[in-house]
């Protein structure tokens, strides 16, 4: 006979599971997550499904409006720009320049920032504050100025954007990781673990890190959206990706000449940027509110 359940069973979900439950209860955050997955797929496989090469110029279809316009055609789904290049294809090719580049930069900055931040966070005294504050001064140079400096040294180009935005983002990671590691280190449970005989490495990895991941995750989402906006802004100012490149910011800059006659050449890449940043911010927001009860 099945035992009668007097009390309902109350499983306590693991923290990760609880975060997921709260996160997935928020439809906006979930929509953001789906959009990011879509963007990732497009970043990886976009060039394969693009109907045209990004540089293919079609002289018979200059400044063609998008297909829903009466004078648009379905072959050029989102219309063409002043050189007859298919905007849809350029967007797909641009995804891995703007979005993929942003991810790459953030991952690099994250790794470097994580190493420096956790080292300086675990250390005490002068060494720690030199490591932490050295990069604080870099933090005070806005990312665009940093980019200008890098461009002045190396000349414009997409690779230099990598360095410029990366140098601007790394200190943020260092700072937030340093602060949270340092803060956790002051707490009693760390002392308790030390009294149990844990060495520094164990304290760091098994005791402190589980409480710092949240900060890292949130900082990463913030950094990705900042990176996309920076890459696009540099492309727009002609300091990053150069003219024929289908980078989204550069596409806006290239469409600017015909802003009045062909606004779609500016609108569509702009919307693409807005869409991807919005998706990331939605996910970041959802994560933050899902993590909030655990952090407090």
């Amino acid at each position: 006979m099945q035992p009668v359940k007097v009390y309902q069973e109350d499983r306590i979900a693991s923290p990760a599971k609880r975060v997921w439950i709260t996160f997935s209860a928020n439809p906006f955050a979930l929509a953001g997550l789906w959009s990011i997955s879509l963007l990732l797929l497009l970043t990886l496989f976009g060039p394969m499904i693009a109907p045209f090469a990004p540089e293919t110029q079609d002289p018979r279809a200059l400044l063609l409006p998008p297909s829903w316009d009466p004078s648009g055609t379905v072959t050029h789904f989102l219309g063409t720009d002043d050189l007859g290049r298919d905007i849809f294809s350029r967007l797909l090719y641009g995804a891995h320049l703007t979005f993929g580049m942003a991810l790459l930069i953030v991952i690099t900055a994250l790794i470097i920032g994580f190493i420096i931040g956790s080292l300086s966070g675990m250390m005490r005294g002068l060494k720690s504050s030199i490591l932490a504050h050295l990069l604080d001064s870099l933090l005070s140079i806005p990312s665009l100025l940093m980019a200008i400096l890098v461009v002045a040294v190396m000349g414009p180009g997409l690779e230099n954007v990598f360095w410029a935005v990366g140098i601007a983002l790394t200190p943020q990671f260092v700072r937030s990781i340093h602060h949270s590691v340092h803060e956790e280190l002051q707490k009693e449970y760390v002392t308790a673990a030390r009294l149990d005989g844990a060495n520094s490495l164990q304290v760091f990895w098994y005791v402190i890190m589980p409480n710092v991941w949240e900060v890292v995750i949130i900082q990463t989402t913030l950094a990705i959206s900042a990176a996309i906006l920076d890459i696009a802004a540099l492309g727009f100012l002609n300091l990053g990706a150069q003219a024929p490149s289908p980078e989204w910011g550069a596409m806006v800059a290239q469409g600017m000449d015909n802003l009045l006659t062909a606004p779609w050449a500016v609108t569509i890449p702009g919307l693409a940027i807005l869409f991807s940043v919005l998706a990331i911010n939605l996910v970041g927001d959802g994560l933050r509110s899902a993590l909030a009860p655990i952090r407090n």
Partner: protein
Amino acid sequence: MFAYLLRRLNLFLATSLVMIGVLFYATGLFPVERTYALTGIHAPTTSQLIQIEQDYKLDKHSGWQFIAYLQQRLSGNLGISVTSHQQVAEELRSVLPASFELATMAAIIAICLGVPIGVLASQSQHKLTQNTIMAITLTGYSVPVFWLGLYLSLWFGVDLGWLPISGQINLLYEIKPITGFMLVDTLLSKSEYGMSAFKDALLHIILPAMTLAVLPFTVVVRSTRSAMMNVMDQTYIRAAEARGMHTSTIILRHALPNALIPVLKHLGLMLGSFASYAIVVEMIFSWPGVGSWLVSGIYQRDYTVIQGGILAVALLIIFLSILIEVLHTVFNPLSRKDLYATR
């Protein structure tokens, strides 16, 4: 308190020093002659060359060179501009006020609108109001500023024709720069067109200031909202309620002062991206400020202008962020608690 201020001053000096060091190192990497990168003189005569070598100690060890560089830069010698052959310091002085004017205007708009809306969002019981405000701010936070600026100028400037879309003032007005702030200068000017010039300057600043205000506005709204929600849960708010105070009094007297402290901190952290945005906005609206000056400097490979501009802006940001931190301590008696405990 004094020791604290001293520590902050120390931090300011150290950070600035590192920053100038970075700049010095970058100057060495510029793909041109060292003398040219340092002074902006393209083909120096022999006497000039000797002078430059003396000023920047180019014959000595790089440590000495850095000290000499520091001396030159801090004494106001930023070299001459390659394109205009004017002192960079002079040019900087003429473009800085315009940027200040724009930034102040944007900050005022952001704070005056952002704080009340943030409070409203935190107090509203309606799911719809809350969601709308959050959706708007999240979009504002995500929108690429150059694109937004383009569209605002397209709508308000071209389609509707309400507002001018470029420059600081109509070129027909001749305003003598007194303070450098166009809005103040037009009011101060004795010309009979002073008033209409002021109106014109005001119309010119609206679009760029609105565009620039979007980022700080969203940050202010969001951080005010979360801080207010946090504060309203505290015991002292309930204690104030139990004393029979009215909700509006509680918000104004107890909740808002406590909530604005973290908002101030967020504003300080935002300075860097605010400056980046300002550069782009100045470019789009041809605002004669540091940003457009710098960007045109990079287009023309004007190395002295780049150095001078970055130096000025970065120093300003370091100073402002430390100032905000100090203000944060002054306005927040709680952060003095640590100082109190260590006394």
